[in-house]
């Protein structure tokens, strides 16, 4: 195969995935329709995730005005925001609740898109960028968790970074040193300290947002060019206009999401779900409080890690990541019914580990839950 034909095929492949000739008023507004069926609710999850991203950007910018990314001042600045800045507690709580809701929406969006076989040709790139966005969202969660510099933040980050280094023992030859190098690069010094905080801060507010903007741009462009996938095997009951009907419904979901988020942020401090010693300023010379664990959206990896050998989890995580990224090709011939069962099993595992992970852990390891 000559280079010219390779390039030609690549151009054809991209052109089929990004039919930019559809970028006109007639195709994008007048003609565009959305199928209505029993899984139509899944079409609104991506929009909800986008809404929570907007909330995170706005509230994150507001927090930036006061937050100090130094180990001596980070915790104090966060307390200052909560205690002394007008509306600061509400904004900070919106940021905390918003991050959880965004991750919940992104995971639900991924599972429903999988169940609806929304990765079918020509939507492969939409899917792959979506999986990339999921990983970026987890990256936001991991890096943002450290910024308040309280006990649970620093200690959970230490555990997370140690896990990276542990990968080395399963790699051959020189590759065994790579995870240590990655950890040291992220950490920036011998232990989690000022260099780590500075790097996590830069990654959280600069690197990840730029990466997200790029991937999200491609994802949204592909979604708009191809429209909604058919979602179910049987013909849709009816179709509705994308503009204005679907857009109005989508904004209505945004409105409800905003109201729920506002009430939660106003009335239910995110920290109330944890014991207070976990939110005290990190003291390297002080004792480590009980109950250190990552945010709830990492429980699906955290509890299995506590129960099973690291190597098993490493292989399982690697396989899951490959399955997710290559889903459009691996599940090309799989029926939607089978995909729905797989998505349901995935959701059951995630919910089970999130809600009952601690009980499962104590069931196998003993001790009071």
């Amino acid at each position, binding site marked *: 195969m000559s280079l010219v034909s390779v390039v030609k095929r690549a151009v054809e492949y991209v052109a089929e995935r990004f039919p930019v000739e559809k970028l006109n008023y007639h195709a994008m507004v007048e003609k565009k329709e959305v199928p209505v069926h029993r899984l139509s609710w899944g079409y609104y999850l991506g929009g909800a995730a986008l809404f929570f991203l907007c909330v995170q950007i706005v509230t994150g910018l507001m927090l930036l005005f006061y937050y100090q990314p130094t180990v001596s001042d980070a915790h104090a600045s966060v307390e200052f925001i909560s205690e002394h800045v007008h509306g600061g507690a509400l904004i900070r709580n919106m940021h905390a609740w918003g991050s959880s809701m965004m991750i919940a929406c992104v995971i639900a969006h991924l599972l429903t898109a999988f169940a609806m076989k929304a990765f079918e040709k020509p939507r492969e790139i939409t899917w792959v960028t979506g999986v990339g966005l999921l990983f970026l969202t987890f990256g936001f969660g991991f890096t943002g968790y450290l910024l308040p510099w309280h006990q649970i933040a620093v200690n959970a980050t230490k555990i997370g970074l140690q896990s990276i280094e542990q990968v080395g023992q399963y790699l051959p030859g020189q590759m065994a040193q790579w995870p240590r190098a990655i950890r040291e690069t992220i950490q920036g010094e011998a232990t989690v300290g000022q260099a780590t905080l500075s790097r996590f801060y830069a990654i959280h507010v600069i690197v990840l947002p730029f990466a997200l903007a790029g991937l999200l741009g491609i994802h949204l462009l592909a979604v708009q060019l191809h429209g909604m996938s058919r979602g179910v095997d049987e013909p849709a009951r009816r179709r509705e206009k994308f503009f204005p009907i679907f*857009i109005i419904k989508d904004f*209505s979901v945004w409105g409800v999401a905003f109201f729920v988020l506002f*009430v939660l942020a*106003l009335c239910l401090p995110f920290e*109330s779900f944890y014991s*207070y010693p976990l939110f005290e300023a990190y003291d390297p010379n*002080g004792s480590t409080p009980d109950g250190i664990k990552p945010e709830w959206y990492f429980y699906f990896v955290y509890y299995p890690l506590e129960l099973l050998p690291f190597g098993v989890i490493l292989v399982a995580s690697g396989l899951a990541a490959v399955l997710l990224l290559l889903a459009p090709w691996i599940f090309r011939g799989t029926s939607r019914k089978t995909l729905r069962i797989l998505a349901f099993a995935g959701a059951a595992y995630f919910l089970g580990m999130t809600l009952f992970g601690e009980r499962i852990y104590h069931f196998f390891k003993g001790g009071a839950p």
Partner: protein
Amino acid sequence: MNRLLGFRARADGSARRAPFAFAALGVAFFAFAPAARAYPEFQAQIAKGAGRPVNCALCHANPDGPDGASYGQIGRLNPEEMERLNRARKAIEPGAEVNSPILNEFGNELVRSLGMRRLLELKLNPAALPDAIDPKSDMDRDGIPDAEELRDATHPLKKEDGRPWRLFTHNVRKNLWTIFLAAVATAAGLYGLAQLLQGFARAARAAHGEEDSSDRE
């Protein structure tokens, strides 16, 4: 222990002061200071009762308690702070002016309202501490009385720390008007946006129809 401190328990749970009580308390405070300063019995009981970890910061200025040389610990106190600490140690009866630098506001209030003698009695029955304090006292104004916060192992001075459902219901009641306004604003905003989008759609259809008709002409 009661005997050692010079108290004899009565049937109703209170204690009668023996003649050598003050002398014994003095010995307890100053000769065996490290044992008498910290109150791990309360911490252990509160954590056990609620199944939730707590640390010394519930009553103390430092999360690791008063012993040491860090902030809020005895090793770092200046003479003026030592004097305040000693005054607090001598607050045997309730009502004394207490402002100990090793205690937080709640810890000082405990000593002020109960007195050191009652606190030392309670050390023998730490589960009774929540019942001993004013049931209406709510120092962080989060809607959960301090006594309940102790039973739940949540912090009486942190308004964001409390049983989630109790906090939620209290804050909903407190912010009902704000929530109502937010609901009205959201609904009005959505209604306006929907009207605007439908108006755009109608205008686009009309303009397109006019174009079509002019084309036909």
